[in-house]
């Protein structure tokens, strides 16, 4: 299968007070055609930074990609592209939606202005064609009374509506890849489900691949085919969704699954002890070592290698390395 996006050995560093710290380390992600690929992790795990680096929108300085490659549609290296080349890709071939629909739209422009803007950047349609395209897409993302809503300003719409508008802007030029950075986090639960359903529908209609970034395993289970679990800037486990939920390998993934809320439990909710290490105090071995229930001596000194523990299921943990050594 051809991959739409191929991230290889991506490293992102941050400059802080004349020192450089690593925030994203050796991330490898491949997103197939029409696939919904999930990245799950706590805040500060580097999942949003990974998405922003695809768009070339990292706040530089202080952040910058120090190593790696991001290949779009096989042979187009995004990291080598000039600003001008990136501009043509942003919003047209790769688009992005964000966590906060309340602040993601310019308050001083009507919805129509903000939609038209994307069309002006990327198409040569006439004004009436643009207007029709706006009405069509607004209708397509399930907003009632499209003609009236186009004349509204963002503050006149609810959070769910604004997120639909964001999706409309993103889908307007029929992108090959949609980056969704916590698209449902700021919405209430019923709206969340609607937005996720909409995204799944749009993927079918527009034949778009989606990179779904979330801290919510529920969203992953609901939408994704493949998933990468990120912790402190590293992908600690990567597999298809079924395999991840049925046989999680990494202690962090197990912890995450244990701390999910499910309908029929009465005991206290589990939480992983400790907190994500800060960039200044990143452990030298396994980055999860300080919080891991199965920690061993080697974890503190050496970074575990990425290991294929099952078919198409990789995990970065010394536990499985040991097992392999024992078994043979």
């Amino acid at each position, binding site marked *: 299968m051809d991959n739409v996006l191929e991230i290889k050995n991506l490293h992102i560093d941050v400059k802080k007070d004349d020192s450089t710290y690593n925030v994203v380390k050796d991330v490898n992600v491949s997103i197939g055609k029409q696939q919904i690929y999930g990245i799950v992790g706590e805040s500060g795990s580097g999942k949003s930074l990974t998405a922003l680096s695809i768009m070339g*929108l990292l706040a530089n300085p202080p952040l910058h990609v120090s190593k790696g490659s991001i290949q779009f549609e096989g042979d187009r290296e995004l990291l080598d592209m000039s600003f001008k080349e990136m*501009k043509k890709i*942003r919003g047209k071939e790769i688009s992005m939606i*964000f966590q906060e629909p309340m*602040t993601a*739209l*310019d308050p001083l422009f009507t919805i129509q202005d903000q939609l038209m803007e994307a069309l002006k950047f990327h198409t040569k349609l006439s004004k009436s064609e643009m207007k029709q395209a706006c009405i069509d897409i607004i209708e397509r993302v399930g907003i009632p009374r499209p003609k009236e809503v186009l004349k509204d300003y963002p503050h006149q719409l609810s959070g769910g509506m604004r997120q639909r508008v964001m999706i409309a802007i993103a889908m307007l030029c029929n992108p090959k890849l949609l980056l969704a950075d916590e698209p449902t986090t700021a919405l209430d639960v019923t709206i969340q489900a609607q937005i996720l359903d909409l995204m799944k529908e749009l993927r079918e209609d527009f034949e778009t691949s989606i990179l779904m970034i979330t801290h919510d395993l529920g969203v992953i289970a609901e939408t994704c085919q493949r998933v990468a679990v990120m912790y402190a800037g590293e992908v600690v486990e990567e597999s298809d969704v079924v395999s991840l939920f049925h046989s999680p390998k990494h202690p962090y993934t197990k912890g995450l699954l244990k701390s999910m809320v499910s309908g029929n439990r009465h005991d206290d909710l589990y939480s992983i002890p400790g907190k994500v290490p800060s960039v200044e105090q990143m452990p030298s071995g396994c980055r999860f070592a300080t919080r891991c229930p199965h920690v061993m001596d080697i974890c503190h000194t050496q970074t575990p290698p990425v290991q294929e523990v099952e078919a198409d299921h990789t995990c970065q943990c010394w536990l499985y390395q040991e097992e392999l050594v024992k078994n043979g």
Partner: protein
Amino acid sequence: MIAYTIRRLLMLIPVLFGISVFIFLIMKMIPGDVVSTMLGTEATDESRSQLEKQFGLNLPIYQQYYNWISGVLVGDFGVSLRTGKPVLGDILNRFTLTLELTLLSAFLSWIIAIPLGIIAAIKRNTSTDFGVRIISLLGVSVPNFALATLLLLILSVFFSYYPPSTYVSLVEDPVKNLQMMILPSIVLGTAMAGAVMRMTRSTVLEVLRQDFIRTIRAKGASERVVIFNHALKNAMIPILTIIGMQIGVLLGGTVIIEQIFSLPGLGQLVLTAINQRDYPVVQGAVLFIAFVFVMINLIVDLLYSYLDPRITYK
């Protein structure tokens, strides 16, 4: 919107009433009076009381105020005690120059301050930003009379340039008029430029950090579109506020600047009138300047709702 404008206009009444009482009392409180300045200290009591009677200064103070304000309400600002000419005619006549000076200095300061503020925000923490911040700090902190004197000295000593000294109005000779007005406008506009520069830099910086800027970039916008179509428009409200406030400073500043550059504007009229204790002229002119200032701020407030759809006046 219309109802709001009418309400704001009605609110002008108590404001202007307060100012009229205040300026009237101030003029009564400063030592010396018009009769002594006209007749000198040698004057006989008889001639003094005759003149006082003629000007109505023998009446009780509330009566004097009533006589003045009841005239003002019907557009009669009285006549100058020194020249006998109607005050309002003098004010309007002189005001054209002061207005030109104010507008020209405001315009000059914006075309310099807003671009520099934007550049400083884009290139924050670089030497360019640092330079702009020093210029703006100097702008707000150097008093304009000092700057005026310095500028005139430098131009005359090193470049042997002297601005034309007899005033010609804009309609008579636009080129010569602008030659006269450009120096005082630069001096007067400097403080406003400094303030506007600082405000532009900080608000543009703040806007650029907002989420929606990231959305616009993600749509494929060039930096030009990001800065001019979105960041600047969003930054305009705080900038407009500071401009409205600075207009007041400009109007006040014209008094000194017109004196230094010997321009026959409203400021010069007021200063002369104060020295001569020409009460109707001072009172009329100050009331007029106050009116202009509150009107400008009303316009600024109305512009807010034009710029920002979230602001509606009911």
